[in-house]
């Protein structure tokens, strides 16, 4: 079940599959299978690729390093031609999570993918933000805030 609450600051709080995170209030929820939740920017922008975020959550069964290796392998083995750019520690207080960034080329667009691998309480959470590489800087504050806001639901 996905629960959404629009806030007065223009953002929306989303609760789904054991995690809570924020997305921009005007983003549209996209139906996805399994324990994932996806949102995309409004249709009709001039962007060459519709920016979107997918949040996937499951019970944790590996260390953050193993989680990071999985993220890297998925990036290297991506279906379209891809190129892994970075894989770095990430965290607001202690940088023990990971952020992996890779590019892929498909349909005349180079798409930039930032994937946060987070361990929150007893859950492994992937936050995957995709946009055209051209829009990468413009979406940086939004993608960072979505990742920063992601927490495990404790109730």
């Amino acid at each position: 079940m996905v629960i959404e609450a629009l806030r007065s600051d223009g953002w929306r709080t989303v609760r789904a599959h054991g995690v809570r995170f924020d997305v921009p209030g005007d983003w549209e929820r996209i139906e996805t299978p399994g324990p994932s939740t996806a949102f995309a920017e409004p249709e009709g922008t001039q962007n060459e690729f519709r920016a979107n975020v997918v949040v996937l959550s499951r019970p944790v069964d590996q260390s953050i390093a193993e989680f990071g290796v999985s993220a890297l392998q998925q990036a290297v083995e991506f279906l379209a031609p891809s190129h892994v750019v970075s894989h770095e520690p990430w965290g607001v207080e202690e940088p023990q999570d990971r952020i992996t960034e890779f590019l892929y080329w498909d349909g005349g667009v180079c798409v930039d993918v930032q994937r946060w691998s987070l361990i929150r309480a007893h859950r492994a959470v992937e936050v995957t933000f995709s946009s055209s590489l051209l829009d990468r800087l413009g979406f940086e504050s939004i993608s960072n805030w979505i990742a920063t806001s992601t927490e495990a639901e404790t109730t």
Partner: protein
Amino acid sequence: MTPEEHLDPAVTTRSGGLESESLRWIDATQPYPASGLRMSARAWDRLAEAEGSGFLARIRKRTAADPELVGLGVLDTVGAPTEHGREILAIRSRPKLFLTATADGGGRSATWGAYFSRTRALVCAEPQNVSAISGSEHDEVLDVRLCSTSEALGLMAAWIGLHPVWTFSHEPHHGEYGVDEIERRIAAEGSVPPPLPAGASWPVSNAWDAGQWTRIDYGVPRTGLQTKLIRAGDAAWFAPGPGRNDTVFLEPYAPSDILRDILALFQDSMATVSRN
């Protein structure tokens, strides 16, 4: 990859015991994604002279490169540019912006250039010394590709060999090196590095024998915006700057920041050109 193989012991130790996954296998898995037109340097130069599809093109003297250009579909059999050829020529001869990069290391040098119109780009990459295309038989072959702006910027990131590394600061007062020491390391072939400088920091020591060191410069000549980097094998990136007493300071540079820098340099240059 087994659980034992996925960790980098040196980085894990450096991180105070925090398990740190190995990243150095990734670089070898991702060569420059070459899928554009493969063209000799001679044909590339000849194509520049072929602009104009009318009478002049048809009476222009044929060259030895013409059959190659006809085979690639950019010239027709009478020597005039095809529609694809005209599109390439239009962007190449009247770009809104030209972004260039050079890579030098181990006695090899390569250049990469992207010509941008308002909506399209033309990328021309020489064989590089930072990825899998190597060997003298390729020395004169270019990879030429007509693509979107985002594709071109992504190709540049791939071409300079941008890849993940763990980025650590130097120990205090250990970030400066003799200019000659760094020049010798860049000039050396990757497998035969000169002696490690005395008092080298952990980031420099860790990267010293981690493969070819390459000097990479990229920028937009028209706006004067440029960035200088050193790709230290598959283990580190540094931004060289002036140190004290004629030394060079190697600032450790995270790959994600390099990607940001490429994008910002492009966007700032586009904004500058559009204002002028």
